[in-house]
Each structure stands twice: as structure tokens, then as C-alpha cells.
């Protein structure tokens, strides 16, 4: 049976998954009947624990994985119907940001950002102008001659975002883009992604295990568990009235708004778990 689609915001659909299943050899069902729609201009978060199927879902959207069944549409085009050659123009509309940045260590910052432009066939002068403009947008003008290892983690992720944006994609896919960063740097990168969405109109699909990221950036959220979307909706409504136990646990991890009741009642209702057998950890 086709799962009900997860509404994706007010804009025209840019990404659509229709009853998508992805089964790996050995029978592991990484994505199990997921239907969701991401509207143009939306920041859509997919949150879940490790192994929930988030990364596979993202790889399905950029065509790195093919669904076992169901269909994935990007900008109205069914990726399954396109061959490798047909996927190339679709992939040019998709930028990708990675947790570990995935920069070329042997290339300068400018060289990293130039790379996709040269692949796309821009001449040297036009590519350089575009790359420098993009570096300026992410706050790294003047850093073009430096190498990734000379940069902080936050700066490296800015280079990663610049590289993803420099071909002016419609969609940005973010794979745990802030998970390797400290809280302050995470805030700076989230603020940059917010600018990418608002000022450039780029639709963002991000996956994360941190509900704080969803709270700080997303318009809509889907919660995944064991390959399925167990809950989805507008971010405030999901935070205010979570219906699924997994969602409620993620919300508690981001709000910390109730006290730890373990010392008095022997059980905490606000979400902290047992630190050790027979004992309770204090709430954060």
C-alpha cells in the first residue's frame, strides 16, 4: 500500500518520493515505503537515529542509489527513468554538503570552489569570477589562496557550502552538515544555510540526528525510524504536539523544558535516561 505523502510546504514540489523502498543485498530494508514532498523554497529536515535510513534517502534523491521500488522525482523528473547521461543535468541542479566536508586537500579554497564550475564547462575567467562571488557570499573572500588544512572546521564547511552553491543549484542536500562542528560554529553554519535559503531561494533537504538543527533551521520535518517516516509536519506543530514516541524523545532533547523527577519519583518524565543500571542520570 502506498504510504500517505508527507506534505512539503507551500511551493511547487521540487523533490518527491513516492512509496520508495530500498532493500540492500541480504534483505536489509533501509528505506521502507517513504512518501514525501519538498516544496520549492522550503527547508525540510529529516531527523532520525543512526541506521534510520536518512543517508540512504539522501543518496536516492541525488541518484547515487536506485530505489528497489517506488519513484524519486527531482524537479518533476523521475530519476529511475533517466540513464546516467540523463542524470547529469539533474545533478547539476543539486548541491551536496557533507559532514566531513570532503574537500580536496591538495587544492586551495578557490581551487575547490572552481572545480565543479570547470567540470560544468565554464571558461576560466567566468568560473573564477563566479567562485570568488560565492566565496564572498559565504564570508570567505580573501581566503581563496589558503588550503583546507589551514582552515577551522567552520571555515571548511563554508568552503563545502560554497562549492555546492557555485553552480547555482535549485536544491541543496545537507548530510549531517553540522555534526562535526562545535555548538557556536554550528550556529554560524545554520545562519549561513538560512541565508542560502532566503536570499538565493535554494530549497534545502537536510538530514540530521540533532533536533536542535531542525529547530534552528527547518520549516518542515520528517522523523524516520527503521526506514519509515513515523511522523512529519510543520516544525512548530511537531515540537508542540509530537504524536510518536520517537518524535517526543527528539523534541525533549531539544527543549529541556521539564525538570528531572527521578530523585523523587524513581522515574524521570522529562526524558533523561538511566545512566547506569539502577541509577538515573540527571537531566541536562
Amino acid at each position: 500500500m502506498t504510504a500517505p505523502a508527507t506534505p512539503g510546504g507551500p511551493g511547487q514540489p521540487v523533490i518527491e518520493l513516492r512509496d520508495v523502498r530500498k532493500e540492500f543485498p541480504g534483505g536489509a530494508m533501509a528505506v521502507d515505503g517513504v512518501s514525501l514532498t519538498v516544496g520549492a523554497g522550503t527547508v525540510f529536515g529529516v531527523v532520525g537515529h543512526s541506521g534510520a535510513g536518512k543517508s540512504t534517502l539522501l543518496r536516492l534523491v541525488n541518484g547515487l542509489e536506485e530505489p528497489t521500488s517506488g519513484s524519486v522525482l527531482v524537479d518533476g523528473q523521475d530519476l529511475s527513468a533517466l540513464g546516467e547521461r540523463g542524470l547529469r543535468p539533474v545533478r547539476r541542479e543539486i548541491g551536496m554538503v557533507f559532514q566531513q566536508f570532503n574537500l580536496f586537500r591538495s587544492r586551495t579554497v578557490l581551487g575547490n570552489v572552481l572545480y565543479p564550475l570547470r567540470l560544468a564547462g565554464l571558461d576560466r575567467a567566468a568560473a573564477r569570477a563566479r567562485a570568488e562571488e560565492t566565496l564572498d557570499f559565504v564570508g570567505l573572500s580573501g581566503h581563496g589562496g589558503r588550503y583546507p588544512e589551514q582552515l577551522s572546521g567552520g571555515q571548511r564547511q563554508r568552503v563545502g557550502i560554497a562549492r555546492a552553491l557555485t553552480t547555482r543549484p535549485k536544491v541543496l542536500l545537507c548530510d549531517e552538515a553540522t555534526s562535526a562542528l562545535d555548538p557556536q560554529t554550528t550556529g554560524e553554519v545554520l545562519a549561513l544555510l538560512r541565508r542560502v535559503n532566503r536570499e538565493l531561494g535554494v530549497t534545502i533537504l537536510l538530514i540530521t540526528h540533532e533536533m536542535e538543527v531542525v529547530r534552528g533551521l527547518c520549516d518542515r520535518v520528517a522523523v524516520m525510524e527503521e526506514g519509515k517516516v513515523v511522523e512529519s509536519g510543520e516544525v512548530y506543530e511537531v515540537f508542540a504536539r509530537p504524536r510518536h514516541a520517537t518524535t517526543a524523545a527528539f523534541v525533549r532533547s531539544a527543549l529541556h523544558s521539564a525538570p528531572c523527577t527521578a530523585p523523587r519519583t524513581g522515574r524521570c518524565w522529562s526524558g533523561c535516561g538511566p545512566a547506569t543500571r539502577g541509577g538515573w542520570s540527571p537531566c541536562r
Partner: protein
Amino acid sequence: MPVIDGAPVMDALAPLLRGHGVDFAFVHGGVGEVRGRPLGSVTLELRGEEAAVEAVAAGLASVTGTTAGAAAVPANATATATASGVKAGVR
């Protein structure tokens, strides 16, 4: 008590307390912003006669998802109302 934008529970609090002659103290509070709207919960210790405390707790529960541990409590005991489950606040 949950603090949710547009939810009526905070409006119901003062009349319930006044109506039943129950006093309160803040035990815990955590209210932040999500997408520019307030969200969180506050935990109150209700102080008063057992029946009155239970009535206030029941009144709050009827308004929204507020839950309270209004067990049989002596006049100087407390019930704790939070957003996430029924629990005894007796001490």
C-alpha cells in the same frame, strides 16, 4: 503546564487558582522559541487543601494536555503539574 502558542492553558490558570483558593510556586520552567513562537513548559507546585489542589489539577488537565500528580495530599503537601505525564508530587 505546556506553554504553546495559542493554547488556552495559561489563561485558565489564574481563574482556577483563585476559584479554589490554591497558591503556587514555580518549580521549573523552560520556554524558548521555535520558528519565532514560544514553546516550552512550566512546572508549578500547587499549595492548598487536598480537594482544592486536585480540582485545580483536574481543571488544568481538562484544558489541554497538562498533567498533574494530584495524589491524596495533606493540606501542606504539593502537587506538581508538568507537561509530560502523571506523577506524584507528594513529599
